């Protein structure tokens, strides 16, 4: 009970505080609109916000799903052998260090304005943690356990199937929580740089028209969507790797 009430109470408190600050200091609408204003805009522009949110949601999920499949496969490949690991790792780190905002113009050049650059950005930004986590899970398999299996005549593939992959599942599902948030960031960033639809684009347009309360309404929707997406992946994680959460179930 307290676990539901406490965060709810805190959120409400935060909004009340925000409202109070706006009223007491009489902040102009163009600087920081009060929550009442923001919710007002949210209601007033619910149709375009809803339409654009759907686009962002779908590009995020598409990018995330591609990252999940690709990240899992690449992670298994990288974790398969030490040599592959050391060969690919520097390139991956380098690739991951490139700010993805810088890639978006290139993507737009290649694929045109639309949903594709957003999906690709979401994918590019979110696959790295998945790869690293899966590879780490595989690389940290206990050598003694490997001996037990190898002494039975198990092939490398057997060891992977019976031990390595199940063992790296908590790492994999753990990384999905990080990846979904990043995918969301990627999609919105891409929309902000250049797109014809999506929450990022909507907020950019509202900003240039000095409709600051719509910008904040967009931010609010982003936050809520972020929480929902995170919660879903966290739930999936618990569902599939109960054994790794044993401490919490006892």
């Amino acid at each position, binding site marked *: 009970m307290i676990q539901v009430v406490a965060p709810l109470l805190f959120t409400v408190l935060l909004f009340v505080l925000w409202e109070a600050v706006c009223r007491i200091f009489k902040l102009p609408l163009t600087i920081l609109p009060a929550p009442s204003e923001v919710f007002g805009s949210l209601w007033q522009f619910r149709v375009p916000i809803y339409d654009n949110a759907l686009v962002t949601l779908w590009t995020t999920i598409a990018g995330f799903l591609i990252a999940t499949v690709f990240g899992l496969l690449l992670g298994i490949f990288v974790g398969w052998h030490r040599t592959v690991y050391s060969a690919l790792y520097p390139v991956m780190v380098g690739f991951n260090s490139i700010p993805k905002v810088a890639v978006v113009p290139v993507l737009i050049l290649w694929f045109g304005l639309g949903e594709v650059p957003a999906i690709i950005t979401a994918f590019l930004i979110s696959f790295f943690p998945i790869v690293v986590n899966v590879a780490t899970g595989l690389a940290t398999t*206990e050598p*003694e*356990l490997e*001996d*037990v*299996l*190898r*002494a*039975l*005549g*198990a092939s490398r593939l*057997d060891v992977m199937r*019976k*031990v390595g992959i*199940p*063992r790296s*599942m908590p790492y994999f599902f753990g990384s999905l929580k990080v990846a979904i948030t990043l995918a969301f960031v990627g999609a919105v960033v891409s929309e902000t740089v250049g797109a014809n639809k999506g929450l990022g684009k909507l907020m950019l347009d509202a900003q240039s028209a000095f409709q600051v309360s719509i910008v904040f309404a967009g931010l609010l929707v982003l936050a809520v969507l972020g929480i929902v997406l995170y919660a879903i992946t966290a739930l999936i994680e618990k569902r599939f*790797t109960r*054994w*790794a959460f*044993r401490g919490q179930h006892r």
Partner: protein
Amino acid sequence: MNALVSLQSVSMVYGRGADAVRAIEDVTLDIAKGEFIAVVGPSGCGKSSLMKLISGLHLPSAGKFTIEGRPVTGPLKSVGMAFQNSNLLPWRNAINNVLLPLEIVQPHRSRMRSERAQYRAQALKLLESVGLAGFAEKHPWELSGGMQQRASICRALIHEPEILMLDEPFGALDAFTREELWCTLRDIQQQRKVTVMLVTHDLREAVFLADTVYVMSNRPGRIVMRREVGLPRPRDLEVTYTPEFQSIVHDLRACIGGRH
């Protein structure tokens, strides 16, 4: 001679060239079918290397190593292993952990799907024989250290290996649990007549369980003493308090040496 395992002047080296580490040097020993041998020695003396060698995971650099007269060229498949750490898979319950080797070793591997029920019954019986009757469906974290170790030994035995290799299997247990497991292992060996190689640094454990005890020296590991334990079987824990037992332990201890 009817030795199951035969090592003649076998040496084993890790690495190559200047970095090479000599782990085992000039070891000669025979293990008869159904014999229980124990290898004792100071830590880092290559006991575990000897185990890797005999299981075929690591090939000798010199000497002759045969099993049932045939030279060994790779992993044996007829070996069951258990270590100090039980290494049970946390996502599998006890019985599924025990069944793991059957999913690897032929011919069980291809029969696993069609005869799963029969294999399960077999695993259940094995778990019962080590006192884990009611714990088949429990996950490793729900078992005590001693129970985990029992399950681990079951896993090493399920495919009816020729040789059971135990690397300090009771090292992490408290004294009472350890003695309980000694008796479990003693009974299992008696029933199944399985050949056992036990690596340990507990001399009492070695003398209580084994037919023959080998003492290894510091790296590179050589065998410095071979001692047959003449104590009659079946042995009871009481035997550990007899003068004969004590004197064997004493001899072994003197042979290992070190500062006191």
